């Protein structure tokens, strides 16, 4: 067995980096979508919001399977060649995280309403400045949504396994490593990784809780 420390670190870093990247990208996309859904009034609005909320519970293996068929060389997006790379894991986790982040933002912004925007305009701010001030007020909402999204993708295995291939030092993250080590009967390593997973999950919740307290 090669240096356990180096391998352990690699596994944890893959989990953190992939989940962090996918959460970040999803937030970027979810902010405009969430704000739009909260404020625009159009015919299919309610249905769209319902679909968004339902998407939060799509099983990870379904998303993994769907993307796998797209990204395999045989599939329509095979030319990208990203199957079995961290990029594919990120793509899958983005699909996982987006609904929960967007739904949280939509809900929060609906609550916030356009009060901050109008208040800023009444104080003489330009449209741009007022939008910026509005986003500043929405910051807490965005942070909460990001934490929710991160929590979901950090501990998932379906997408990571199917799209990443569990390649050592490359796409093997905490969850896929736990699965592998358990199937090998290496409970020691599996448990150690599980502790890391739980610690991070706990930290996320603690941070989210501190945000709520501050309200």
């Amino acid at each position, binding site marked *: 067995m090669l240096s356990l420390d180096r391998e352990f670190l690699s596994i944890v870093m893959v989990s953190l980096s992939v989940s962090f990247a996918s959460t970040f990208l999803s937030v970027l996309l979810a902010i405009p979508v969430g704000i739009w859904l909260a404020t625009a009034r159009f015919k299919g609005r309610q249905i769209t919001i319902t679909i968004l909320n339902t998407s939060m519970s799509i099983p990870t293996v379904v998303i993994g399977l769907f993307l796998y068929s797209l990204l395999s060389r045989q599939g329509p997006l095979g030319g990208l060649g990203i199957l079995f790379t961290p990029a594919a894991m990120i793509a899958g986790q983005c699909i996982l995280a987006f609904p929960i982040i967007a739904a949280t933002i939509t809900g929060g912004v609906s609550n916030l309403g356009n009060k*901050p925007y109008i*208040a800023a305009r009444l*104080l*003489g*701010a330009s449209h741009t400045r007022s939008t910026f001030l509005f986003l*500043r007020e929405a910051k807490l909402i965005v942070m909460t949504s990001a934490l929710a999204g991160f929590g979901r993708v950090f501990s998932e295995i379906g997408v990571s396994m199917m799209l990443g291939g569990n390649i050592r030092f490359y796409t093997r993250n905490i969850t896929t490593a736990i699965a592998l080590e358990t199937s090998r009967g290496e409970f020691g390593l599996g448990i150690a990784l599980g502790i890391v997973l739980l610690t991070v999950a706990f930290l996320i919740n603690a941070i989210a809780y501190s945000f709520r307290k501050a*309200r």
Partner: protein
Amino acid sequence: MMISSVKLENVTKRYNGTPFCLQIDNLEFHNRDIHVIVGPNGSGKSTILNLIAFLDRPDAGCVLIDGRPLFNHDRDVDNQLRKRIGYVRQNRYLFDMNVFDNVALGLRIRKQPKNEIASQVDSILPLFKLEHLEKRSVKSLSKGEYQKVAIAQVLVLKPEIILIDEPDANIDALSKISIEETIKKIQKERNSVVIMTTHSLKQAHRMSPRIISMRDGKVIDSGEENFFFENK
């Protein structure tokens, strides 16, 4: 030239899906005294303020400031005019900052220099007895303190038209009185056009002899008869 009059001429305003309709033949506000609009909820008080503050347009008729109608073709003139109007809405909102930063916000938007901002804010906070709360986050304020900060945030900009919608719903008597006194003081010092709304007749009488009563979108009592014909 200081603004001296605000006028509504033949104004009607409806809102889709509601039976409400504002109908004003002729209403004029000068800068020599506080005007109070009294009426129950839904009588049109806030609508009038929204029309004056550029937040809404009348369906018919016009709103004139110093004889000049709002929403002219000239956007710049409109924007300049907007900056001379201060509006404390019923749905007031303070930003997630401390008291000082909230009150200073309008001044920062106008790009005033730092030391001037500090002196302006520091001179208005005592009027509302808010000096000791400067560094406090607005989330920790009491209702009364919150209202005072919202009003200070607007008044620090020295607007020539001051619109206040229900200045002290739901706050304690002491804070109420202090807010009322401060508004009176500022109107006297600066000769601003001050239009206040309230549903309390008692408060209306405390603030001014010029009381305009409204119901169902119409003015039912325009206050002192001589009022409309006084010239400055």
